[in-house]
């Protein structure tokens, strides 16, 4: 009986520690795809957006396995997430003693749209119209896949 309780308490403690250390990651790009496997060609599980929160489950070759708020599990390329740890236990009166840069920017204190607007008012004659046009150029993943295959690139270029 005593042993059982010890085991239970230890298990609970381990579980709690794991829970508290679970890394919460933030999506740092405008949008990205949660994929079934750690590769760009894998089927898409869900679309995720800037500032969305996910929990890290595992890591493999530049990819992280995560769980979303609605319990979807999949893989994200590590360049799409902010990896700075959020110290849950450090929260008290001051809310948090550590915050990532992204959190600060999300709170609206960064080089963002408003600052660009003020800069543009002072600097007329810059070509933002062409920048917008440039941003509209999109190469879809299926188009890129075809391009790689035709050009014997990527996995289609590796010696058999």
């Amino acid at each position, binding site marked *: 009986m005593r042993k059982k309780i010890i085991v239970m308490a230890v298990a609970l403690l381990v579980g709690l520690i794991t829970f508290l250390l679970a890394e919460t990651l933030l999506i740092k790009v405008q949008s990205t795809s949660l994929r079934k496997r750690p590769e760009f060609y894998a089927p898409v599980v869900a679309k995720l957006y800037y500032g969305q929160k996910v929990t890290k489950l595992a890591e493999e070759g530049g990819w992280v396995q995560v769980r979303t708020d609605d319990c979807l599990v999949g893989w994200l390329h590590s360049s*799409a997430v902010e990896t700075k740890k959020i110290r849950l236990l450090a929260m008290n009166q001051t*809310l948090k003693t550590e915050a990532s840069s992204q959190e600060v920017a999300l709170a609206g204190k*960064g*080089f963002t*749209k408003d600052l660009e607007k003020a800069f543009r008012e002072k600097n007329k004659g810059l070509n933002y119209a062409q920048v917008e046009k440039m941003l509209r150029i*999109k190469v879809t993943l299926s*188009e890129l896949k075809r391009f790689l295959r035709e050009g*014997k690139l990527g996995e289609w270029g590796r010696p058999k």
Partner: protein
Amino acid sequence: MNRKTKSLPRVFLAGVVLVVLAYLIACAAMEKGVSVLTSPEKLSQKDKASLLRVAKALRSSFADITEEEEYYIGRSVAATILATYPALNNSRLTRYVNRVGQAVVLYSDRPEIFAGYHFLVLDSNEINAMAAPGGFIFITKGLLRLCRNEDMLAAVLAHEVGHVAAKHGLRSIKKSRLIEAFRLLASEAAQRSGSAELAKLVSTYESILGDITATLIERGYDRKFETEADELAVKFMTRAGYSPTALSDFLAALASSAQASSGKGWFKTHPAPEKRLAKVSAKIKALPQVPAVAKVRTQRFHQYCSRLK
């Protein structure tokens, strides 16, 4: 002894209760933290103030610039470049250059950035290529003419993607200016329109953009950044299946170009191609396996680029 053993389970029971309690408190704490992260509009004044305090203490270098901020900085740098260099009006060619660029991006160390990478051909005979932060990459018609195949074009684009991936543009901002901007951003006064702090913030931002633009167009990056971008280019190209020797071919073509003595464009902002060539060749020699140039790629390159000659 007997009494002691009997009381032990109670101690553990109390321990368990305590652990559960701590768990519940932590859950509540997390909920609060998370809601702050995901819905900034719901921030209370107190929370906002504490975030500002954190901001002041935390942000001090280029590494603290977020992806979104990098994107906004890049937009203005790109708009400045495009005020000097007009874009080439050839959507077919633009599309092709973007496909080659994305092929390299996919195999780079930083495939995902805030708004993705975008490539544009500039209507200029000057031999030049530039990368603004946030993935705005430019290549001139003059430089395209120097390329003899798709792999050489991929080499130039991979070098530029390397600059973005390693954040060389952001690293060229003067540190004192960045610290000043972070300080102003964290001050409540700079949030009010018409305040002296806001005016100061805008002019500091102007200087930050000026640092990057001057580096891209006039001064050139630090030599060590150019070496790093060449090394990254070899890495990304090889992973993507392009022949890294195309970078050597490109540097050789650059060295023998008639524009080499002009001191314009890439010749002004980059180290001598001969010096880069030696370093790149050594890097390629160290690779276990090197992909070859595929005919099918050279053919499609000529389909798109032959009319430029």
